[in-house]
Each structure stands twice: as structure tokens, then as C-alpha cells.
């Protein structure tokens, strides 16, 4: 094992290299190699399939673990207060965004009675989401 490399990282690299090596061989070359070593091609194929499948599963698990770490890091509170929108008519900005989105447009135009329509606080929150996603700037203009 190389000096500072984590064991799981080495394992993934080894698995990747194993898969890459196998992919470079033609079926005939692979069969010839297996027979030359006195192995049963069926059993050997099953063994290789299981090895590849296990390697892919491990790689998938590592991806999910990395996603969890990244999202935990992103959730750390950002310094500084949230910027206020310099917008008079927040609903008009949202309506413009909802123009091509019938479901959002319907909810936006629905009366706020019976808790069905979007409240002013929710409009503000959605505009914040749009700004965080890079869709609009502080004035509500498309970016």
C-alpha cells in the first residue's frame, strides 16, 4: 500500500484498473487466457462478474457518502445576514418566472383563502430560492 493513501481509495483504484484491464480484452482473448490457466470459463465469468459488481457497489456507496459529507458542509451557517430584495412587486417577479410553468402559475393566482394560495412569506422564500439558484438577482431581474 502506498504511503498516505487511504485503504478504501486504493481499493477503488484497484477495482477500476481491474475493470479497465478486462474491458480491453476481446471475448476470444479472455476465453483463451482462462483456458490456458486451466480454469472453468463459466465459473470464472461468474467470479469476475461478482468482483465487478462488488467494486461498482463500493464505488456507489463512496459516492453517496461523499454526497452526505458535501451537503453537511454546505449546511454550515454562512456568515453575514441575508440580503433583502430591492423589489416593489415580488409577486410580479415570481409571475414572470412562472410564465412557462402552469402549476406554479395556478398556485400563484389562487386566492390566499383557505390556505390554498401562496402567502407573501412563501413568495419571499421562493424568490430567495431563485436567487440562491442563480435565476434572479437582488432586483428580481433574470441573471
Amino acid at each position: 500500500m502506498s504511503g498516505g493513501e487511504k485503504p478504501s481509495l486504493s481499493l477503488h483504484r484497484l477495482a477500476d484498473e481491474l475493470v479497465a484491464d478486462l474491458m480491453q480484452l476481446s471475448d476470444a482473448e479472455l476465453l483463451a487466457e482462462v483456458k490456458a490457466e486451466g480454469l472453468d470459463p463459466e465459473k470464472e465469468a461468474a467470479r469476475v462478474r461478482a468482483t465487478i459488481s462488488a467494486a461498482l457497489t463500493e464505488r456507489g456507496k463512496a459516492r453517496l457518502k461523499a454526497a452526505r459529507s458535501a451537503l453537511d458542509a454546505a449546511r454550515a451557517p454562512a456568515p453575514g445576514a441575508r440580503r433583502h430584495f430591492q423589489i416593489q412587486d415580488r409577486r410580479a417577479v415570481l409571475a414572470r418566472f412562472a410564465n412557462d410553468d402552469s402549476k406554479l402559475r395556478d398556485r400563484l393566482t389562487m386566492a390566499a383563502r383557505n390556505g390554498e394560495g401562496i402567502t407573501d412569506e412563501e413568495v419571499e422564500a421562493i424568490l430567495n430560492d431563485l436567487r440562491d439558484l442563480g435565476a434572479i438577482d437582488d432586483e428580481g431581474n433574470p441573471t
Partner: protein
Amino acid sequence: MRHLTVAEQLLQSLGVTNPAEIDVEAIAWEAGATVKYGALESCEARIIGYRDRAIITVRGDGDWRRRRFSIAHELGHWQFHRGRSSICRASEIGSPREQGPALERQADRYAADLLMPAYLFRPMAQAYKRPSFEAVEALAKEFSTSRLATSLRFVDLSPWPCIIVCHGPEGRRWFRRSADVPTHWFPQNDLDPESSAMDVLYGRVRRSAPSLIGADAWFDRWNADRFNLREQSVKGHGDEVLSLLTLTDADMLE
């Protein structure tokens, strides 16, 4: 052999081999969506998307298993309806009724596949000797899902021909049957006084033990009195009673 659904393919690509690994927030992150929790007044959950990124906001209060389902439902919108933002009411998420807006049903199916993938759920359901709410609740614990969502999945994926029926004081509200159950077995609107569901509906017990009863207590079909079935009922949300019916006579499946 059943093909993997889109959600199941995603889970396999992330190496998910047991239910405890279904980290729905991390899966959302992988899919380009950030999950937030907040006070939502007019809806239960929403997704606001722009290009390849989205923000999912879910009500922070209430049952955490329900929140998981809501996140998975919004991810379903992200998967199938990208380019639209969705603001979903509680009634649009996890509805047991098979009618309703097609977009919401599609998002619900995605959520069920993501949280209870068939490749994990089916073998675990098969490990139980027979259908019961105890089995459903044990599976719900394993998959971190609600009893209702799990019971619907159980009906869809377990090897037994069964039906889940929901009644309120005014009569039947909805039902779901497994694919093996012929459509002519249509549960009656009103509960039969002989059924243990009646005891649950009127609060005499919160749950009945699984027991055999004549099929004519549940169906008014001409030949129903020839068969028995197994029934079990539990108290559901509010004034609802949920009943799990298992068809134990193979002749009922013809």
C-alpha cells in the same frame, strides 16, 4: 424478471444494498437538489428548479417519515418534470387513491420506488409467514416509512393476494388490491357488523387479531359466500380504519 425502475437504478448506482442506506437528503444532493426545512403555510413541500439545480423545501414539523416521503416525491418531480416548479399540498403527496393528477401519481410512484425499492422490499416481505399489520409495521421500521405508505407497497409487492381497504364512519374511502386479485372482488361500501373492522371503527379495540371471515362480509358478489378470507384491521388517521384482507382460497383468484 421485473426491470429496475428509474429510482431503483439510481439506488443501485449509489451502492444501496440495505434500507438503512437510503439517505434521501444525500440522494437529493447527488441529483442536484438541496433539501431545506421550513414553515410552509399553503403546501406540504415544494421544489424550485433552475437549470440543473433545485431547492426542495419541506415542512419542518410533523412526522419525519412523512418528510422523507415528501422529499422523495419532490425528487420524482425533479426526475420526471424538470423545468417545472412544483408546490404540493398534503393531499397530493402519498395519496392512496389511484385517481388524481397524473404528475402527482408519477411522483408518488417514484417516491415509493426510492424509499422501498422492490429489490430490497420484496425479499423482506416474503420473509414473513403471512400478511399482517405487524409485518407491515416491521417493514415500515426497516425502511423508515409510514405505516400507510408501507402497507400500500406491501399490497403491490408482497407474494400474497391481498387488499387494503380504508373505511370511515360514512363508508369506504379507498382501497388498493394486489395485481393477483381479480378486479371483480370490489370491497363493499359499508362495513359488515361481523367484521372486526367494525370494532376498530367504533373504538372498541385499536387493532384486531388476524382472523378468518366469510368473504361475503367484504364483497357482495354472487359467489362470495363460498369463500373465506383473512382479515385484520387497525385504527388509521383520525376516524379511519385500515383493513388488510388476504385471499386464502385459490379459487377466488380465478
